[in-house]
């Protein structure tokens, strides 16, 4: 009886997740897929997505790695607060994140006048897309990297120091290689989150083809404008990438454990 209930509940949820994804693929006509993906809006969205997610990933690694290491190894005042703050964007609604970014860096935002004086515009530029992705994606990397660094026994860093390696070289040659599966797993998740970013991007960067229109935004516009072929084709691309990411994250998690 209980076993049957478990089976039914499980089947319902698994089907609920699987069926829409299958339906999405089913909507993509293989004969027209090539032409659709080669169209100007699709290519522009692919290019914007690749460029911005590469940039936001680079920023995530450059800024997130030192922070994750500090959170894992150092005791500093406000550490608990910083730790919680970094996790916040994971649960804040993306549209709220976009609004917050506008209030900070928009023309009427906190830094608006200062940026205006420097003739720098951020909101509704490609850079705004990168910032939105950094905001929502970086926490996934920092979380994973912090755990990865914390799992590296400090005795290896001590051993490296007594053998004559300075702190930076010890970090590069000992700490990072030992934490690598966790770092890579976090980077994959952060990149995937950035690739799927929609809410914060549309609020803070807008939906301008060739400037701020990423794949998810192009899917949305395709639906709005009635170009279902385009929407479905790009959506299928995103789902396929997501599938690869889930598999990659699984493999890396297993190696980290």
């Amino acid at each position, binding site marked *: 009886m209980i076993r049957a209930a478990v089976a039914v509940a499980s089947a319902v949820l698994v089907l609920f997740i699987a069926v829409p994804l299958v339906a999405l693929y089913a909507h993509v006509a293989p004969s027209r897929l090539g032409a659709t993906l080669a169209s100007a809006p699709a290519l522009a969205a692919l290019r914007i997505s690749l460029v911005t997610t590469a940039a936001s990933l680079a920023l995530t690694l450059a800024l997130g790695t030192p922070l994750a290491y500090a959170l894992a190894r150092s005791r500093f005042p406000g550490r608990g607060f910083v730790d919680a703050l970094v996790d916040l964007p994971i649960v804040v609604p993306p549209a709220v994140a976009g609004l917050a970014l506008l209030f900070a860096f928009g023309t009427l935002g906190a830094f608006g006048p200062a940026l205006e004086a420097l003739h720098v515009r951020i909101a509704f530029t490609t850079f705004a897309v990168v910032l939105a992705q950094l905001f929502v994606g970086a926490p996934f990397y920092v979380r994973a990297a912090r755990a990865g660094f914390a799992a590296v*026994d400090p*005795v*290896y860093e*001590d*051993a*490296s*120091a*007594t*053998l*004559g*390696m*300075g*702190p930076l*070289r*010890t970090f590069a040659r*000992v700490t990072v*290689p*030992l934490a690598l599966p966790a770092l890579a797993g976090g980077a994959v998740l952060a990149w995937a989150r950035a690739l799927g970013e929609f809410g914060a991007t549309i609020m803070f960067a807008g939906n301008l083809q060739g400037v701020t229109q990423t794949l998810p935004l192009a899917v949305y516009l395709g639906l709005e404008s009635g170009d279902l072929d385009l929407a479905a084709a790009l959506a299928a691309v995103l789902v396929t990438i997501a599938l690869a990411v889930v598999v990659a994250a699984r493999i890396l998690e297993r190696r980290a454990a």
Partner: protein
Amino acid sequence: MIEIAARKVLREFVLEVDVRFGTGVTVLAGPSGSGKSTLLRIVAGLVRPDAGRVVLDGRVLDGTGASLAAFRRDVAYVFQEYALFPHLTVRENVAFGLAARGVPRVRRDVAALGWLERLGIAALRDARPATLSGGERQRVALARALAWAPRAVLLDEPFAALDEATRARVRAELRATLTALGVPVVLVTHDESDVEAFAAPVVRLERGRVVTERENGASPEV
């Protein structure tokens, strides 16, 4: 010669020592939790003393307001669980100290292999530490510590992770290798059989204080 006059407040007691370790092996003995490892870590630069001086061959490692970073001390440390880098091969582990000193790859590989041959484990050069036995790990750790000609060698309970049979054999080998170095060597142990076997000068620590210093391992009662 390592000269230590240092003080460090620990959780259970205050470590306060004024002691010298000359060239050759000195056994630093005492019960578990008497401050032996902390004293070793102070000399290596892994723990900063609250006050005092640590001098190695006239070079001040810890002094008034200054403390030389561990990686600049040229003091080798063999950790209790060996701490071999799991992501590197045996050869890369042994060559690590030479890599830190900018020795080119070919030369450090030759030097590492020389040490592995000397310790009878050359066949393991491409193995990863995870695949080695306790005795093999101990030798790799020793080779890694000695391959770059350190100015002093510190060994923290080097036999603790070994079984009885391996222990007796390794003890004899280690004594010969360490005596031949011609630098101060401090070997920490809580095991009285190590103290007897080494027949070396003994410094005994209890609750952070030096209680006896003896010229060799023979018990004073005998």
